[in-house]
């Protein structure tokens, strides 16, 4: 118990009042009412805040509004029809359902793919195009990559990731927009699901990827984004929640 008879001591109070001069924190008002030096410190902080507030109110020039495109022309469609189809590859020893194995020879195309909120669609294009570079990543398997492989790709300097995310069958360090991007594949309910962790690619809103046979999303996550792409019918919403819960940026 301190001199003021409260559970908050003077050092704690001063730290708190310097962070929040409105004194909205618990125990603050009681402490300052009974501790004269801290009450004086509070007055100093409030006076300082008045000066800070006045100094921050710089003059605002007459800002001209940009030309806003009409609603009709706003929706962006990324034409990805010319891209090579992705093919899943499955090792013969994987004893999974024939119907799933058959899926390995079905071309997956992003024709008529609609992308929203990525103003020029370039990130969505790069993400989807990247899938073509590593078609072997999309294997149906029940074998997980080792911790060593996984964490050499999802390095602590980039992100932390809990293995509760799911069965990760592929992990490779790739490049998008010149930045290192962990490229993971996890086994979803419908087949392999690609996950790209892009800590430097900021987007304002989720970008929906809606193709003929696959679907996905690029999620804004902090100052970066994460792409999740699976076969049509995959539980993308559930995966979104799991990814958000199990991946944290370090950057």
């Amino acid at each position, binding site marked *: 118990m301190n001199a003021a008879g409260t559970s908050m001591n003077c050092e704690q109070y001063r*730290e*708190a009042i*310097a*962070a*929040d*001069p409105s004194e909205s924190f618990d125990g603050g008002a009681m402490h300052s009412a009974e501790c004269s030096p801290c009450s004086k410190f509070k007055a*100093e*902080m409030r006076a*300082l*805040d008045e*000066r*800070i*507030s*006045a*100094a*921050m*109110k*710089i*003059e*605002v*020039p007459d*800002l*001209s*509004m*940009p030309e*806003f*495109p*009409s*609603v*009709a022309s*706003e929706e962006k469609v990324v034409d990805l029809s010319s891209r090579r189809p992705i093919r899943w590859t499955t090792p013969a020893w994987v004893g999974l359902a024939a119907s799933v194995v058959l899926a390995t020879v079905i071309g997956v195309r992003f024709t008529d793919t609609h992308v929203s*909120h990525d*103003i020029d669609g370039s990130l969505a294009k790069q993400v989807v195009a990247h899938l073509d570079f590593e078609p072997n990543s999309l294997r149906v398997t029940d074998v997980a990559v080792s911790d060593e492989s996984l964490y050499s790709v999802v390095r602590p300097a980039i992100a932390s990731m809990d293995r509760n995310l799911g069965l990760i069958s592929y992990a490779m360090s790739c490049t998008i927009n010149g930045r290192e991007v962990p490229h993971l594949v996890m086994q979803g309910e419908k087949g392999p699901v690609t996950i790209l962790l892009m800590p*430097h690619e*900021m987007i*304002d*809103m989720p970008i929906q990827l809606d193709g003929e046979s696959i679907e996905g999303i690029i999620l804004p996550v*902090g*100052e970066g984004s994460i792409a999740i792409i699976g076969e049509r019918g995959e539980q993308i919403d559930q995966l979104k929640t799991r990814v958000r819960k199990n991946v944290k*940026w370090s950057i």
Partner: protein
Amino acid sequence: MNSSNSDLHRRQRFDRLVSVWHRDMYRYAAWLSRDPAIAEDVVQEAMLRAWKSLDALREDDAAKQWVLTIVRRENARYFERKRLETVDIDNLTPSQSAMLAESSDTDLDDVREAIYRLDDDYREPLVLQVLMGHSTKEIAEMMDIKPGAVLTRLHRARIKLKQEISEEAAT
């Protein structure tokens, strides 16, 4: 609803929820970038981005936080694109100098210069709290850091400002 009616309806909603915050958007951008000229560019881009994404704004009450988050991201994009050098306070552009000495009150200008010199990590939460009136929780959400980290930065920012202003007054 035809296209022109839709545009009109959208513009009305935009003015009500976004344009109304243009002064805050500009000041926030100016304190983030520490350059009024860049702030104008950032606000223009942020306005355009907000217009395109307006349908994604579900709660009207969250509009201010939403537009400021767009400004924050647009500012980061700007610096990513331009890869500007760190601001050297002894070698400012005319636009930057004008921001620091725009009043006839030298005391106010001293405080402004001290804020200008703060590290980005300290200056930003201070602007969001003092100028924008956001709570610790809201600032934590916007900056994607923990509330405890926000409080630590705010405490350090004020202590540093207090010291600098005291030293300035003593000279």
